[in-house]
């Protein structure tokens, strides 16, 4: 396998983007990544998108996005793994370059979620759960993560304030991210008193409905050197699945696909969690960030909430998580989220994060974790400054 680096990143402002179409959102981010890399063409493209069909009635993204990107006959594909579609696109592009099949590949992600009503979005997102044995009974995504939250609170004593501290920290970080959907700070009291969605999760525990796209350019380390870009090398890629239904899992307080994907990425990289300087993780709900931090091995089982409350995951903490603002503040255009994580990781590793959220002490090694559904699929990647 060849060594692969990320040489270009592109991401537009995320939010309720009524003025831009599905195709323009994607092409805008893709062009930013192409310009950033300084490449004049692509060998291939892979796009993460959860459900263009349900959100805007548009499938066949390979054709549409290659067409509007203006590269005739470009080999392109769309991959889907619910909210982990972006992470899967990243891995697919990585494998394609590492294998020698292609030299310059764009990995992108896109979702246009606000052209449907809130109810339409709830329906579309729920397709990531078990339709006949979860959704049939009235379960929603906040509901599924609420079931994990209650189990975690019962088993480990995780508290309301611990959940809230995750949202407060991510909004603090996101307030410094010009691309974030909700770039403002919130307080513990505001989270604690926000509207209940699915107990114990309140609206400010939940990531929003978002329009957005992101793209990165992957190539060999040799080509990256010729382009004169900082070499951000992909040293580990891990992928795992778990049961589609939450109730089929032996333990409701851990995320086994995250644990296994991380193990595979660490084994490939020859690293452990102690070698990682910071991480972007899938905080679709506050409880998710807590459980993910435990399943990755950053904190012991049951200690993720306490650590978040103590500030261990803040910008100045022992293990910063979601310097971008995470899904919570930056937004969660589901298929784009995994690529959005890569954009932040590369910015931090290049020392280019805006507005004072750049980590001190020149971080060298980063991890990103992107999961689908209630954790039924997970991608973990480890990137390092070469």
């Amino acid at each position, binding site marked *: 396998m060849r060594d692969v680096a990320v040489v270009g990143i592109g991401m537009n402002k995320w939010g309720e983007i009524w003025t831009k179409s599905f195709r323009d959102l994607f092409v805008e981010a893709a062009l930013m990544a192409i310009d950033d890399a300084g490449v004049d063409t692509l060998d291939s493209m892979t796009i993460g998108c959860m459900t263009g069909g349900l959100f805007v009635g548009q499938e066949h993204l390979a054709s549409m996005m290659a067409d509007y990107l203006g590269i005739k006959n470009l080999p392109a594909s769309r991959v889907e793994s619910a909210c982990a579609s972006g992470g899967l696109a990243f891995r697919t592009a990585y494998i394609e370059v590492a294998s020698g099949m292609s030299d310059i590949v764009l990995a992108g992600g896109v979702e246009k979620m606000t052209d449907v009503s809130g*109810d339409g979005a*709830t*329906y579309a997102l*729920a397709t990531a759960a078990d339709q*006949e*044995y*979860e*959704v*049939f*009974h*009235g*379960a*929603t995504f*906040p*509901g599924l993560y*609420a*079931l*994990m*939250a*209650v*189990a975690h609170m*019962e088993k480990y004593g995780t508290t309301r304030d611990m959940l809230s501290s995750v949202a407060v920290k991510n909004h603090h970080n996101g307030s410094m991210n010009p691309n974030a959907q909700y770039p403002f700070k919130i307080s513990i009291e505001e989270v604690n008193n926000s*509207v*209940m*969605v*699915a*107990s*114990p*999760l309140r609206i400010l525990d939940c990531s929003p409905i978002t329009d957005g796209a992101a793209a990165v350019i992957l190539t060999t380390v040799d080509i990256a050197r010729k382009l004169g870009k900082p070499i951000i090398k992909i040293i580990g890629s891990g992928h795992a699945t778990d049961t589609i*239904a*939450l*109730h*089929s899992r032996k333990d*409701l307080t851990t995320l086994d696909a995250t644990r296994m994907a991380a193990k595979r990425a660490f084994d490939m990289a020859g690293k452990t969690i102690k070698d990682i300087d910071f991480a972007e993780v899938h905080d679709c709900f506050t409880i998710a960030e807590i459980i993910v931090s435990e399943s990755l091995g950053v904190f012991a089982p049951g200690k993720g909430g306490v650590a978040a409350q103590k500030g261990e995951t803040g910008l100045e903490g022992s293990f910063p998580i979601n310097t971008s603002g995470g899904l919570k503040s930056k937004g969660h255009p589901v298929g784009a989220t995994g690529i959005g994580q890569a954009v932040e990781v590369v910015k931090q590793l290049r020392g280019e994060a805006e507005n004072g959220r750049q980590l001190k002490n020149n971080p060298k090694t980063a991890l990103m974790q992107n999961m689908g559904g209630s954790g039924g699929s997970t991608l973990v990647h480890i990137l390092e400054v070469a």
Partner: protein
Amino acid sequence: MFPSRIWREKAQRYRLEAGKCTTCGYIAFPPRLICPECGAREFETITLPDTGKILTYTVIRVAPSQFTDEAPYAVGIAELTNGVKLMAQIADCEVEKIKVGMEVVIEFRRVQTHGSHGVLSYGYKFVPKWY
């Protein structure tokens, strides 16, 4: 919603039929074609017990359209007396009184009404044992 989709699940929703692996004893609900524990492909049909206890629950206040009239409603995961876990609504109780560890009985209920044609879907719900 085509009736065939509802009809296909009737053995599980109406009769709680599960598949028990004849090699290792794993119980699959719904039934599966291959055992995720041992890889065997032979199952015998069994009926799940109708009692268990709540492992976790949530009260849903922002509901999908076919459930908005019922919100707030509780959804929980129960572990049955034979160890099988499944998800269902927790009915016939004040949602504030639901607790982890609470004993429940599975009862046959109407679960939802599909779309403007109003096809009724029946299935199981958890009901607190003390009621």
